[in-house]
């Protein structure tokens, strides 16, 4: 079960190779934040080229676009939302002392760390890293002769992705087992905080969706290294490039929900706490999430409407894609109405949370023009897609996580981040983000294709160069704001205003019963006992009723 009780831990075993889920979670969180800044800077670089072509070479531009995409999905969103918040909060919220497999947990972080090193290494090998888009479509990615970048860089890139998948799978096994097996008494499934449901469903989605891609990645590596023809086409030997697309997107679509669901989970915790009202309809959230999760496995080819699939199956995928908007709209209505009738305190966490929600509404709605198959003929591979996924993914990977950071910072570190800074941070982020992302919709409407080094070569796009310049300035200011946040974040860990109160936000869930920060093995000689629903706010005239209370463990004679 749990590892040794209070014994002397060396610095190495306490901070480096820690098996404590909170330390591991913080390791994920901090690595993820650094990679977010790094990925953002990469974007700033290629956006500078878009505003002022010639700043980069063609290969550099394509490589930066590739790494920006891969880093944001695999080295920022997943480690922070799953590895970071999942690890820190899951045992605390369910009353456990640690994860089910602490050693495996430690291994998962260090595998992830190695994957980060390999990734960065792959960018700097002679010949450069991979530059065929984060979607790694063959034959561009499979034919060493047409590589931009080197074969070594590409193989290292694929290896880094594989290691990251391995680490997340290890984490997933841990999360699923822990949530099933280690809930404290009274915490039945329908009493779990929504965040826990979301982590569970996300972990299951990841487990079942990533494995075909791993199979595909192995086939791709064989193509690159051994000259097989799974995806390559050469004279008489005809592989199928479209097969890769199927394998990739079969994973790719559930993957975005793997990221989305925990972020929505954070929003539920934040909205209920700062508006002092319960979730509008708990059951709707749980069921619609499960339905959306299941549906997410049958929408994948909406990325391939004009890419070599049978047009009749394209219509089927268009149907499922449009259908999936229904459980989501139900959930967003519930999430929105959670603040109705409340008494809202505009803390930085709430402002980021509400921004995330509002931007996600835009993102979700703009999925419909893409899911409608006839419109997608025009919009596929244009900036409209770029705008859509930034409004869905950025809001999740960045706005929600920052909201979560502000919210749980006192619990994790026993200190607070300055609230005035937080509000300015939120305002600037919102303004600069929209400045860069919203014009992209219009570029898409104008028919501007993606991954273009510059728009100046095309007559029908030349006149929109000023839009690129505007977007670039906004993007650079956005990244600069986050870099300032990085400094404030680290400053606050060591010198922020102390917060000794274990439950400063007066929240109901179990993690707020522990001291801040929680000690090793979380509960000391107490154990939480759950008697109530997770979001008992504004009930019977009481401000809030905590979900559980601490009870001292009666030591039995052995």
């Amino acid at each position, binding site marked *: 079960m749990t590892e*040794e009780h209070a014994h002397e831990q060396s610095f190495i075993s306490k901070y480096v190779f820690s098996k404590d889920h909170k330390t591991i979670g913080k390791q994920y969180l901090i690595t993820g934040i650094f990679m977010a800044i790094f990925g953002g800077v990469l974007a700033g670089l290629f956006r500078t080229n878009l505003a002022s072509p010639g700043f980069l070479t063609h290969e550099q531009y394509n490589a930066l676009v590739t790494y920006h995409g891969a880093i944001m999905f695999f080295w920022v969103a997943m480690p922070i939302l799953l590895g970071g918040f999942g690890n820190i909060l899951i045992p605390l919220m369910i*009353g456990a002392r640690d994860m089910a497999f602490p050693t495996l947990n430690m291994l998962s972080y260090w595998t992830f760390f190695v994957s980060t090193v390999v990734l960065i290494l792959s960018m700097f090998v002679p010949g450069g890293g991979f530059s065929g888009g984060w979607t790694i479509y063959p034959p561009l990615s499979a034919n060493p002769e047409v590589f931009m970048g080197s074969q070594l860089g590409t193989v290292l890139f694929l290896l880094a992705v594989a290691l990251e998948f391995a680490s997340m799978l290890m984490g997933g096994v841990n999360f699923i087992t822990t949530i*099933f097996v280690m809930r404290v008494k009274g915490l039945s499934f329908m009493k779990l905080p929504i965040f826990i449901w979301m982590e569970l469903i996300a972990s299951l989605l990841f487990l079942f969706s990533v494995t075909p891609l791993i199979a595909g990645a192995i086939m791709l590596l064989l193509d690159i290294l051994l000259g097989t023809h799974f995806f390559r086409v050469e004279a008489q030997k005809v592989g199928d490039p479209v097969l890769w697309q199927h394998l990739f997107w079969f994973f790719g679509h559930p993957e975005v929900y793997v990221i989305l669901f925990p972020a929505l989970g954070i929003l539920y915790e934040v909205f209920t706490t700062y508006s002092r009202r319960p979730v509008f309809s708990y059951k709707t959230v749980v069921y619609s999430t499960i339905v959306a999760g299941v549906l997410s496995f049958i929408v994948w080819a909406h990325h391939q409407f004009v890419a070599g699939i049978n047009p009749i199956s394209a219509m089927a995928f268009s149907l499922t894609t449009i259908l999936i908007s229904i459980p989501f709209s139900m959930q967003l209505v519930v999430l929105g109405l959670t603040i109705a009738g409340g008494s809202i305190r505009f803390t930085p966490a709430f402002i980021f949370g509400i921004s995330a929600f509002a931007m996600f509404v835009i993102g979700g709605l703009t999925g419909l023009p893409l899911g409608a198959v006839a419109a997608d003929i025009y919009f596929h591979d244009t900036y409209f897609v770029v705008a859509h996924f930034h409004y869905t993914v950025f809001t999740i990977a960045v706005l929600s996580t920052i909201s979560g950071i502000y919210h749980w910072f006192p619990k994790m570190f026993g200190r607070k981040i300055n609230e005035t800074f937080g509000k300015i941070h939120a305002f600037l982020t919102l303004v600069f983000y929209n400045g860069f992302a919203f014009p992209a919709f219009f570029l898409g409407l104008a028919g501007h294709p993606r991954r273009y080094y510059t728009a100046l070569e095309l007559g029908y796009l030349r006149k929109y160069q000023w839009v690129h310049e505007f977007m670039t300035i906004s993007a650079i200011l956005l990244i600069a704001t986050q870099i300032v946040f990085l400094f404030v974040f680290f400053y606050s860990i060591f010198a922020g205003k102390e917060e000794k109160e274990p439950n400063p936000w007066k929240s109901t869930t179990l993690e707020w019963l522990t001291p801040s920060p929680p000690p090793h093995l979380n509960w000391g000689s107490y154990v939480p006992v759950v008697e109530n629903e997770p979001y008992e706010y504004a009930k019977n005239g009481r401000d809030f009723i905590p979900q559980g209370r601490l009870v001292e463990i009666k030591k039995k004679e052995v």
Partner: protein
Amino acid sequence: MSSSETRVEEIEHKEYYESFSVPFQRFGFWVFLSGEIIILGGLVAAAILFRLSYPNWFESSTYTNVIISSINTFVLLTGSLTAVLAHKNAVDGKWDKVQLFLGLTALAGLTFISIKFIEYSREIHHGFVPSKDVFWMFYYGITGIHGAHVLAGTFIILGVMLFLKKKKLVEAVENAGLYWHFVDIVWLYIFPLFYLT
């Protein structure tokens, strides 16, 4: 870790935590296995799809050696048998017998890999390389990954053997055996797909 601390934890868990009928190591292992099933399943499904569209699959597959692979099948099945015997002895508490049977299972793994090595060398020598055609591409891909899993399984068995010297845990033996059975069952799909046609 002293035994009294373990007992306190066990009591604490039973009294204060929701009961769940499956021991968590087994549950976690099945979660992991379900992912593995989809990887191998995905590859096998892809192989079947390609097999249906490429008529020269059958011609190429006559060059695989049924005899060698039948021996390998027998080796794997024996390994499964010894793994089951190891588990039975673990439950009965006969830990030296456990080490014996685990050792035999690891030996089965090494035998399988050696035979596979010989087989591959023969085939490559005859010019049947992965880039030759669709059949050989899948053959090397899938049997290669399966072989890598057998190797991993062998290491797992050895690891469990070492671990048991520290702590006598029945679940470790059980999970090692479970992994072996999985590798075995996958082989039972691969064998007809590539050798018996």
